[in-house]
């Protein structure tokens, strides 16, 4: 495993410092270490090593005292994150303590954090979709936000690069607006999904229902095992079958001998040298001792998550940057985006009662975007688009609370009757970048270490609400035409943040006056600081973002290495 800089007696100077060890930080560490740079990864939480630190990975419900339940104390500790519905006895140790590190919701906003090595790559939904120029050109086309400084061609080979290493399972479809990845074999649809797919594709030319594209190995690669279909991913995978930084990128970085991970290290700010006109290191707080320390490097990669990175940059003030490092434009902290979520439809499928499935597939179906692709599909009420995730299944005994009856017959049916088939889809809609959706440093409310927290002021606006309406209407109609029964349309009207796809608060752009980062993810004003987590996103597409963070990180690291060689940084 990596060198751990625990006693701080080692040299304080490295070639590179990466702040954050999650989805994008792991990639930065891998690429920089493989290029020969001595790299220090700062992780604000504890060390997590696969298997050793996955205490619940093999447990069943009966092994847990509360069989998955939470105590009032657990709910208090996770009083923000609990709103996701994802936290339980089996995975609570991977979710941040909201009491130690609070934030203020100026308007309702859910910020889900995972404060340990691996970050949210330990908990993510693993859906992976390439962006296309429909996405990269969106801002330029309809005038919202600023233009991306890159296009699909700039990222295409980097997508292939990260996909080949991460392992993405899926089916090639040849859609120009949802480019195919370099795929491992796809997972299988179940009977009802196949049936619904056929009906939707017949009823709606141009719409597709496909198996989700996921960062799961369906064949072993690089010494990692293939998915065993246990569907216990959020406890940590003993087979390293799904992509996480702890299982995939950090071990690769470590294999070079160039990686040092310093746990319990909360990045406080980036140190700016006024004479040299560049960043020289990172100031951190040791979360266990409260001590402040400084580490130095030639380049800094910020991968602390969209809002984590933003907090660090806002807190990095100097004479040159009184309002936060690289914030000449005034856009740092602004243009916060997420995907709208939990709007869709649910129905019962009559038929295939004699069919079932075997294995617990950690994946569902995907319906790629079909609106606002061209003149024919143009909407009158909104710009941009949405896709759906969903799936079919039989609830088994989990649905017995709704089944009529009780007694011997009812009980025996728990063992023999898997219950009706149901099918649902839920939309993920693109959100526009609004300057007024922003975060600020909150110096009144401090965290456990006396540091300013974030005040988050963000809301959905007309375009997102119009899209949500369409999502529900389309979902109900598709389910009707696909033959579902007792269809329920739903719109849970969740606050932003619920999609756990925060993006945009240090956006890339062509013009330093209106953006924070350049086309290679460098702060316009401080070129040896790179931001390659979700903060860099200029718009947010409607597809899940992690694959794009991976590709952007690998590309930016390649640029950093090449600039270092040329002595430009």
């Amino acid at each position, binding site marked *: 495993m990596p060198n751990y800089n625990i006693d701080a007696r080692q040299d304080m100077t490295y070639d590179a410092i990466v702040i954050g060890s999650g989805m994008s930080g792991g990639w930065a560490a891998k690429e920089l270490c493989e290029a020969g740079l001595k790299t220090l990864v700062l992780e604000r939480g504890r060390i997590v090593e696969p298997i050793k630190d996955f205490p619940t990975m093999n447990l069943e419900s009966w092994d847990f005292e509360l069989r998955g339940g939470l105590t009032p104390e657990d709910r208090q500790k996770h009083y923000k994150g609990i709103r996701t519905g994802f936290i339980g006895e089996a995975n609570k140790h991977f979710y941040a303590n909201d009491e130690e590190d609070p934030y203020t919701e100026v308007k309702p906003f859910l910020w889900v954090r995972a404060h340990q090595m691996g970050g949210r790559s330990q908990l993510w939904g693993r859906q992976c979709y390439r962006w296309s120029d429909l996405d990269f050109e969106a801002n330029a086309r309809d005038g919202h936000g600023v233009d991306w400084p890159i296009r699909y061609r700039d990222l295409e080979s980097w997508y292939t690069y990260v996909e080949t290493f991460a392992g993405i399972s899926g089916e090639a479809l040849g859609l120009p607006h949802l480019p195919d990845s370099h795929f491992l074999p796809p997972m299988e649809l179940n009977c009802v999904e196949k049936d619904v797919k056929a009906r939707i594709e017949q009823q709606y030319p141009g719409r597709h229902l496909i198996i989700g594209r996921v960062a799961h190995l369906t064949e072993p690669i690089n010494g990692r095992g293939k998915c065993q279909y246990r569907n216990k991913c959020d406890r940590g995978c003993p087979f390293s079958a799904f992509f996480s930084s702890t299982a995939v990128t950090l071990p690769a970085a470590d294999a070079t001998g160039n990686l040092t991970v310093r746990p319990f290290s909360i990045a406080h700010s980036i140190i700016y040298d006024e004479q040299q006109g560049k960043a020289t290191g990172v100031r951190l707080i040791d979360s266990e001792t409260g001590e402040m320390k400084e580490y130095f490097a030639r380049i800094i990669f910020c991968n602390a998550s969209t809002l984590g990175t933003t907090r660090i940059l806002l807190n990095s003030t100097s004479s040159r940057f009184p309002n936060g490092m690289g914030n000449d434009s005034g856009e740092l902290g602004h243009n916060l985006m997420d995907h709208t979520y939990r709007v869709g439809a649910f129905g019962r499928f009559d038929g295939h009662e004699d069919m079932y499935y*075997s294995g617990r597939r950690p994946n569902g179906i995907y319906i790629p975007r079909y609106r606002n692709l061209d003149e024919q599909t143009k909407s009158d009420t909104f710009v941009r688009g949405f896709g759906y995730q969903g799936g079919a299944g039989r609830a088994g005994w989990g649905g017995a609370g709704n089944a009529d009856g009780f007694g011997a017959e009812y009980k025996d049916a728990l*063992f023999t009757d898997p219950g009706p088939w149901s099918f649902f889809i839920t939309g993920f809609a693109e959100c526009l970048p609004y300057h007024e959706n922003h975060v600020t440093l909150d110096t009144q409310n401090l965290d456990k270490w006396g540091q300013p927290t974030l005040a988050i002021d963000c809301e959905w606006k007309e375009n997102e609400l119009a899209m949500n309406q369409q999502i529900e209407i389309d979902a109900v109609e598709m389910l009707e035409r696909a033959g579902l029964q007792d269809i329920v349309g739903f719109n849970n009207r969740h606050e932003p943040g619920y999609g756990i796809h925060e993006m945009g608060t240090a956006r890339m752009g062509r013009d330093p006056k209106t953006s924070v980062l350049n086309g290679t993810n460098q702060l316009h004003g401080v070129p040896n600081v790179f931001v390659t987590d979700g903060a860099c996103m200029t718009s947010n597409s409607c597809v899940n973002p992690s694959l794009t963070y991976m590709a952007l990180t690998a590309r930016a690291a390649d640029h950093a290495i090449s600039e270092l060689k040329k002595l430009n940084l």
Partner: protein
Amino acid sequence: MDRREALKRTALLGGAAASTTLLGLLQACQQQPRLEWQPVFLSMDHARLVAALVDTILPATATPGGLDVKVDLFIDLVYARTYDAAGQQQVVEDLEAFNSRSAAQFGKPFADLEADQRRAFLQEEEAGAPPFNPRVWGTAVGEQAPVGFYRGFKAMAVWAYCSTEAIGKNQLNYDPIPGGFRGCVPLSEVGKVWSL
């Protein structure tokens, strides 16, 4: 009939009727054998009610019943450990109201009813109880109408039953490491409902 309505109606029964009922309850309690376990949260009377409900919903047949796998003990633990003070207060009120409805109808708490009386009573409780909304990734979709005490309890009892090792491993179809996924398999080939 929701819980508040039930309480109101119980209250309307008036002093004399209530006193008689209460006396009946006391006498009945004295005649009952003591529980074989010490509840953490529930009163003895409420523990008897929980046990009676579990036994009626999930009786022992050729396969173990709810009481055989200690569903009642686990429900007591769930109330004790996972409910906050307000939730616990609600449970007490719900159990009280449930017994009051039983008493109003049959003059006895639920645990002391004959088998056919229990069935008739539960059928009435079940009728008109709104279902649980579908759940998507851990969250109910749409506006959830209150399912009422009985349906909530039934779902909890089934969960407490199926999540035991005795049932989850030995009665349901338990496959901890499937190794692969097949999307269309005849139910007859799978045999039983999946445990996980």
